[in-house]
């Protein structure tokens, strides 16, 4: 237990003292603030519950469950990676620490980080309750119970899943981020879809069912609807909801999710590579050349006088095109044939599918497929530790950064070329304008995210959200991909063009700041 405690403590302190943790804490406080000022809320049609402790507790715990579980995963999915990067993993591998202890320590540390944010949201809920004019008797137990029985079990599962994803080579990279994004949203709502309490990990079915009954009781005209977010609708009235009656069966179901987490950790411990280089990233790793390979190229050790090395003359003649091609080659290198086959298939689908379907479905997928190419922009140098070499080259800010950007634009143009041809044929000029701006927006957004965060994760998560909410859920203002919203918001291309310019400028400033230290 002592080993486990120290593992959790060290891991937690390492994260808690990082700059990124402060930002995430700030975001948790912002989330609490957004609920407090009504930007995010829980509405049932045109009604909502009175802000008593039961309703505020349930509302805040649902917000925490959805937002913290979804985004918290990306926050904590770097515990093993950090040990790999810092080399601490190699030391840990030589200790008697078992895989199970290590995986459990990391999962518990993940859970501790997420639990801190829950505490912040509990405090926000208390503030909201104390500030509310609608409050009746304040009951801390009513307020906190949903967090304990709904949010924390979900976060325990998420903390364990993060360790499992990191332990599996094919899920430890950006592909795993995509899998979680779609898998988790499906998992959160599956209980509600199936009206099944056992599968209802987020307890959304349990709470919505209970609140809907209370709403119908007070407002017979209530015809349904349960929205966590912001509908923008005027609230016509409030109803009283006294919370969930926690029966032993319900308690068993909720606390049962705490038992799922150790099971996931156990699986993770079986597949965890324990920092064995021959097992890490088995899908990508090339065999290290053997000693025999090296001996073959070694020349005898010389003891004679030095022979002065004369290299042929090679003038400096910078060509931007050459650098763009070099950056493009670097971006695309390592992609397998099937990656190109799928991308080609999506381009073809954009060409042959009916135009509306091609824009609504084929193009979003054609532009999500190269996501990991873009997400490495601006961060590749740190990731592969080539930064000192690259940034000590002449004019890296004015040459290399724009070359990376242009290469990213070229990827976007090729990936979206199928639709471009269609738009050109049909003469859809607003659509073409939006398409061109999107090819600028995607790489500028990726570049700025990479330069400022130093990680590919920020772009991957935010782009997935934009893609899902904008293109797939047809939120016109966020839909820069299908461009179908241009008809309702004609100024959309100009807005995204301005954003692209601002993002590139942000990337430039970020890189300049990094270089001038």
């Amino acid at each position: 237990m002592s080993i486990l405690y120290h593992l959790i403590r060290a891991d937690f302190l390492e994260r808690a003292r990082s700059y990124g943790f402060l930002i995430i804490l700030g975001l948790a406080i912002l989330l609490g603030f957004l609920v407090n000022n009504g930007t995010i809320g829980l509405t049932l049609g045109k009604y909502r519950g009175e802000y008593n402790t039961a309703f505020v507790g349930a509302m805040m715990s649902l917000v925490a469950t959805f937002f913290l579980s979804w985004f918290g995963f990306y926050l904590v999915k770097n515990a093993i990676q950090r040990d790999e990067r810092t080399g601490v993993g190699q030391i840990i591998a030589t200790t008697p620490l078992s895989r199970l202890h290590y995986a459990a320590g990391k999962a518990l540390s993940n859970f501790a980080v997420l639990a801190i944010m829950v505490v912040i949201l509990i405090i926000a809920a208390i503030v909201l309750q104390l500030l509310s004019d609608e409050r009746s008797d304040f009951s801390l137990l009513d307020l906190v119970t949903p967090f304990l029985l709904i949010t924390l079990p979900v976060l325990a599962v998420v903390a364990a899943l993060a360790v499992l994803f990191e332990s599996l080579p094919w899920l430890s990279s950006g592909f795993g981020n995509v899998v979680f994004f779609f898998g988790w949203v499906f998992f959160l709502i599956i209980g509600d879809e199936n009206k099944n309490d056992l599968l209802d990990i987020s307890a959304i079915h349990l709470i919505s069912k209970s609140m809907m009954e209370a709403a119908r009781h007070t407002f017979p005209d209530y015809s349904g609807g349960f929205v966590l977010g912001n509908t923008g609708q005027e609230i016509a009235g409030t109803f009283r909801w006294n919370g969930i009656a926690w029966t032993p069966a319900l308690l068993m179901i909720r606390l049962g999710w705490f038992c799922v987490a150790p099971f996931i950790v156990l699986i993770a411990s079986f597949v965890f590579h324990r920092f064995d280089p021959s097992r890490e990233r088995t899908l990508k790793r090339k065999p290290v050349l053997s000693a025999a390979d090296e001996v073959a190229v070694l020349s005898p050790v010389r003891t004679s006088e030095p022979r002065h090395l004369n290299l042929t003359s090679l003038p400096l003649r910078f060509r931007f095109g050459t650098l763009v091609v070099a950056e493009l080659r670097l971006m695309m290198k390592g992609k397998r044939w099937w990656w190109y086959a799928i991308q080609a298939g999506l381009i073809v689908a954009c060409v042959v599918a009916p135009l509306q379907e091609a824009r609504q479905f084929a193009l979003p997928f054609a532009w999500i497929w190269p996501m990991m190419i873009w997400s490495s922009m601006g961060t590749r140098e740190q990731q592969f530790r080539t930064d000192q070499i690259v940034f000590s080259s002449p004019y890296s800010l004015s040459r290399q950064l724009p070359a990376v950007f242009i290469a990213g634009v070229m990827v976007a143009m090729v990936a979206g070329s199928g639709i471009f041809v269609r738009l050109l044929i049909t003469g859809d000029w607003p659509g073409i304008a939006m398409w061109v701006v999107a090819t600028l927006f995607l790489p500028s957004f990726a570049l700025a995210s990479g330069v400022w965060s130093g990680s590919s994760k920020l772009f991957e998560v935010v782009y997935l959200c934009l893609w899902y909410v904008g293109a797939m859920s047809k939120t016109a203002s966020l839909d820069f991909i299908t461009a179908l919203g241009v008809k309702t918001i004609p100024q959309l291309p100009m807005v995204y063009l301005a954003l692209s310019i601002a993002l590139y400028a942000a990337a430039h400033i970020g890189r300049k700041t990094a270089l001038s230290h």
Partner: protein
Amino acid sequence: MILHIERVNKTYKGNVHALNDLTVDVKPGILGLLGPNGAGKSSLMRILATITKATSGTVKWNDTDISKTPNVLREVLGYLPQDFGVYPNLNAVEFLEYMAAIKGLDSSHSRKRIDELLDVVNLSDMRKRPLGGYSGGMRQRIGIAQALLNNPQLLIVDEPTAGLDPEERVRFRNLLSDLSGERIVILSTHIVSDVEATATEIAIVSQGRLLVHGSPESLLRSVEGRVWEWTVPTAELPALKQRYNISSSVRRTDGVKVRAVADTSPSADAQKVTPGLEDAYLSVITSARGEAA
């Protein structure tokens, strides 16, 4: 061609002083920069390589202040950092082509230079293998190849032999010797034998200060007649280490043969011996520590 470093200071967060008023002029040849771990060598290397800026003081390359116009130096700079990575999916030729493009070299001629350099670093046969499969020594050789792409006038190599096996280390020293001539090579290391084999000038730094700068010969002269060797019983060795500056001790059948730097004969049977650079280095570092204490 001159690199002029004047009163350079570098202070990190938490008021950690890595360099204190360091002044030195570097001319063509190989400057061996010696110092214990944490002496400030890598901080100085990064400032010279324009990766970071000095907190105060100036570094001039042929009268150009590199903190104001770093690209003047970058065009003629080759830099092999202490800790660097490569792109694992690229092979040696692709990586060097990429670096040539980054450095702004004429692409139509760069392939010939790359072939030459792969030959120089003995990687011609491995040119098509992805770098992800290279061993540490081979990566180091790719590192030196990229540093030489632009035939640099200033070549900075920071702890280049760390992690290399003895044979690779000797090869690297030979390569550095071959590279000297009409260029400045700055070799930062804490391994004295690396410098002994190659350097035309030596600078010793400790706690961010320049202790000595001169030729190896002048450094050796400073301990001439002060290096002694004698044999003592094994049990006396700990006490001896307290009293003298021991540069080596070798076990023999009749005890331990010790080598020390001392102004006067430490023992009746001690013999004066020809000093080595390690003796001189140890003498300088120990004296500096004594003064600081």
